[in-house]
C-alpha cells in the first residue's frame, strides 16, 4: 500500500552522484517532492522528468525541492541526467535494491522496479500528498502544484 497523507516519510540515505549521498533529513525545513519512477531512459519516465525539469522554478517558488528516485545505479543516473540536462538530483535506490520504494509502499515486485508514484512531504518530514500513477502514464505536474498550493495556503 502506498503511504498516505499524515504518515511520517521514511528517511533514506542514497547516492545522488557517484560521490555524494543525500538524506531526506537533509531537507528538513523545506518541502520535498519525491518522484519515484520505474527506470532511467524509458520513454514515459523521460517525458515526465523532462516536464518537471521545466517546472523547477514553480516548485521552488512554492518552497519545494524535487528529488527523482529509481532503482537504477548512480552511474546510469549520471549519464541520464547529463544527457537530458536535468537540474535536480536523481537518487539511486540501488543497494539494497528498491529498499526505499518498498518503505514507501510502491515497489513493483514483478518488474523489480519502483512504480510511478509521487509524494509531497512538508517541512517537518510528514507526507502531505501521495499519488500512484499507472506505470505507463505521465501524471503531469497539476497534482503536485495543487498539493503545494494547499500546503502554502493552509499556512497563511
Amino acid at each position, binding site marked *: 500500500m502506498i503511504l498516505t497523507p499524515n504518515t511520517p516519510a521514511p528517511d533514506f540515505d542514497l547516492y545522488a552522484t557517484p560521490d555524494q549521498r543525500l538524506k531526506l533529513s537533509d531537507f528538513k525545513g523545506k518541502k520535498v517532492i519525491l518522484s519515484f519512477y520505474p527506470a532511467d531512459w524509458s520513454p514515459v519516465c523521460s*517525458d*515526465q522528468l*523532462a*516536464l518537471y*525539469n*521545466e*517546472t523547477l522554478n*514553480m516548485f521552488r517558488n512554492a518552497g519545494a525541492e524535487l528529488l527523482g528516485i529509481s532503482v537504477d545505479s548512480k552511474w546510469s543516473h549520471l549519464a541520464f541526467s547529463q544527457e*537530458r*540536462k*536535468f*537540474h535536480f538530483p536523481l537518487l539511486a535506490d540501488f543497494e539494497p535494491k528498491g529498499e526505499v520504494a518498498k518503505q514507501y509502499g510502491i515497489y513493483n515486485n514483478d518488474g523489480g522496479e519502483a512504480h510511478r508514484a509521487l509524494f509531497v512531504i512538508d517541512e517537518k518530514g510528514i507526507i502531505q500528498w501521495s499519488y500512484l500513477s499507472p506505470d505507463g502514464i*505521465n*501524471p*503531469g*505536474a*497539476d497534482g503536485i*502544484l*495543487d498539493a503545494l498550493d494547499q500546503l502554502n495556503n493552509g499556512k497563511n
Partner: protein
Amino acid sequence: MAHLKTAVSKGDHTLGNPNAAKVLVEYGDYQCPHCGVAFPFINRLLDNYGDEILFVFRNFPLQESHPAAMMSALAAEAAGQQGKFWEMHDMIFEHQAKLSADTLLHFAEKLQLDMQQFSQDWRSQELMSKVEGDFEGGLRSGVNGTPTFFLNGERYEKYASTYESLELMMRD
C-alpha cells in the same frame, strides 16, 4: 479526466468561428516533432469544418528538451503584436527542422514585419510573461506533454497522431 483551468479569452490566438459549439485548445511546442505532425491535421480540420470549430493555440515550450522552443514561441507572439501571429505560427511549423534565432529573424523579414518593433517585442518581458502564463495554465490543467488537446474544456484523449483520430472530435 483533466479539465482546462484557464478559460479561452480575448488574449488567446484563435482561428475558425468564435461562436462555434466546439472549442479546441492545443498546448503546443514549436520544436516538438509531434506538434509538427499535428500541424497539417489541424489545418485540414479547419479547412473541412472551419465554421463548426474555434481553434486556440497556447504555448507549452519545453525549453531544456527543445532549445529553440521558447524563442519560437516569442517570435510568434511578437509577430502577433503586428497582427501576423498565425502567419508566423505556420512558417515556424513549416520549417520546424531548422529553427534558430537567425531563421526566425528571416521569417519576420519575409512576413514584412517592422523589424525594429519585432526585435523589441521578441525580447519583451510582457511577451515572456504571456508565454510563461500559457505554460503554467497548461501545467495546472494537467498538460503532461505536447501536443495536448482540450475539447470544450475536457482533455481530448482520442488523438493518436492521425488526422482521423483528430477528426473524431466532430462526432462527439
